[in-house]
């Protein structure tokens, strides 16, 4: 085999993976492109017309858009935190313990995923109204709903990481004086972390992108997807593309900064020795 052949062989999986990633980004390239679109000639036409910086200079120009973004991000973060925590706990219970009612609990976990969103949204609204909260619909009711549908996704994701994890490491930790709590934080958590991170990312994207359930329980609050949906009825403001691109850049910056920081920390530790 030639050197080139070997190189390809070694990197084939990575190359294919990157291709899939590329595929996932096709719409985002369009979005990035459109963020420079001057749509003032024809607002309805979602097509590139002419270049402009305007959208980037006034990203918040469309009335209410940035406010809706703020709402969506806050709800997304809160829903992610809460659902990740309680979903992870539940995943632990389901994987690590055999208890009465376990199969019922399992069913409960994936029923919400099997429920059409429209059904979930409207029946939840009925519940809020029955509880006399009809007038208080808004941020908190959206949050409650989002946490509810994120839980299942978190449980399933964390569970697939947790099952089959070497419990000997946890036992070793306990042997070394770590109580259940410390064992969890020092050993289990770091080992399950990729699963928890994945679950959190899923939860955030679910919450951030949800339209149907939110729409029912939002009262007069407008989330970003609601704004876009409404705006799309007569032509999406090009600033939406700016936000889409910015969100993506922000996410990336966030991880890269985190990565750099953790590496620097690691290096600091070594040199301190």
């Amino acid at each position, binding site marked *: 085999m030639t050197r080139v052949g070997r190189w390809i062989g070694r990197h084939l999986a990575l190359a294919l993976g990157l291709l899939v990633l590329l595929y996932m980004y096709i719409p985002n390239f369009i979005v990035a492109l459109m963020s420079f679109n001057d749509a003032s000639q024809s607002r309805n036409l979602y097509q590139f017309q002419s270049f402009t910086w305007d959208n980037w200079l006034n990203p918040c120009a469309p009335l209410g858009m940035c406010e809706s973004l703020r709402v969506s991000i806050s709800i997304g973060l809160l829903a992610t935190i809460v659902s990740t925590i309680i979903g992870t706990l539940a995943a632990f219970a389901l994987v690590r313990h055999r208890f009465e009612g376990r199969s019922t609990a399992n069913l409960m976990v994936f029923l919400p995923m099997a429920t059409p969103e429209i059904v979930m949204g409207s029946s939840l609204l009925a519940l809020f109204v029955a509880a006399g909260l009809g007038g208080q619909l808004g941020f908190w009711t959206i949050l409650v709903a989002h946490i509810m549908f994120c839980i299942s996704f978190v449980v399933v994701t964390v569970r697939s990481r947790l099952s089959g994890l*070497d419990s*000997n*490491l946890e*036992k*070793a*930790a*306990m*042997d*070394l*004086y*770590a*109580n259940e709590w*410390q*064992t969890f934080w*020092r*050993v289990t958590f*770091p*080992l399950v972390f990729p699963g928890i991170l994945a679950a959190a990312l899923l939860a955030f994207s679910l919450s951030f992108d949800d339209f149907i359930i939110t729409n029912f329980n939002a009262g007069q609050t407008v989330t970003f997807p609601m704004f876009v949906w409404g705006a799309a009825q007569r032509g999406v403001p090009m600033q939406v593309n700016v936000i889409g691109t910015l969100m993506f850049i922000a996410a990336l910056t966030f991880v890269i900064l985190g990565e750099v920081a953790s590496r620097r920390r690691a290096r600091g*530790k*070594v040199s301190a*020795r």
Partner: protein
Amino acid sequence: MSLAEDARRDLRLAGLTKRYPNGFVAVKSLDLVIPQGSFFALLGPSGCGKTTTLRMVAGLEGPTAGTIHIGDTDITHEKPFKRPVNTVFQNYALFPHLTIAENVEFGPKRRGVKDTASQVKEILELTELTEQAAKKPAQLSGGQQQRVALARALINRPEVLLLDEPLGALDLKLRRAMQIELKRIQEEVGLTFVHVTHDQEEAMTMADTVAVMNEGRIEQLGTPYDLYTNPHTTFVANFLGRSNLVKGTVVGREGTGADAVVKVDMHGTVVTIKASRVHTESSEGWIGIRPEKVLIQPAGTPLDAPGNFFSGAVVSEASYMGVSTEYHLRMPWGQELICFEQNTGRRGGLVAVGTQVDVSWRPEFAFLLDSSQDAGAGIEEE
């Protein structure tokens, strides 16, 4: 039991039993007292239940029956992290996400020790891991990983330290050095060590007491010297070192008390064995003699050995083993005996295969075992 004994923190296992979910009983009603501050070695063939026993003591596996006490405290159901016990795991169980230094300081940190740096430094030096401190376990060689497991447990200086083959992956030199360290730490602080090892020499030189375990049970327990020189069963005789077992018929018992002896006919020669070395009631028995006690000399040359004497043996095999040579001798009655001879250089070369030799041993080193036991017990069939 006296009051003084009660106050001591001996490790006591009573009726300890472990049945695995698949129904297999790995440990069968084990009773054992391991005195505080002793260096206790647990020996036994692969799969006999050693690891399982240690895991129950550490609290990592719940016993099916029986109790575990340290002194007067019943720790049978105590949580692992509340037991004054640490373990060196057979499969290491290192934390893959932590560096070596972090692995080692894990225990002290959990107990709230503030400044662990100097302790960690010291124990890493001891285990020759200083240079690996910042690496992750996956970047270490097998022996290095084992040393991390050792360091990680040792740093805690627990009341009871369970060592499950802690030195198996180390080369001889390093193993010896570690043995000395272990022994030093154990004596210095008066810890109780329970040590599983496959290195018999290690068990012999380090342990105060050795227990030989077989199929979930303890076969014999005693000082290394006792166990080696006076085994009670064919299993122990074969498992600890090697033994020549020769069929014999009891022809008489004489004397009483310390002087009592048993006379046994062995292929025509009557040998005398002290009653304390006789472990059978029946009229037949296995006469046991260790290979290093078997002396040989080419037929015709004088043999400096007052004792049992056989001529007519032939060397059927000779293997050089560095310090000594192992000879196989075909005896007149057809059995093969094994003989070790140190390569002192005195003989100026090996005794050649085919040489006729005279064989002798001193009768006081022989022991008599029950003939109903399998002479091959403890030797793996091929």
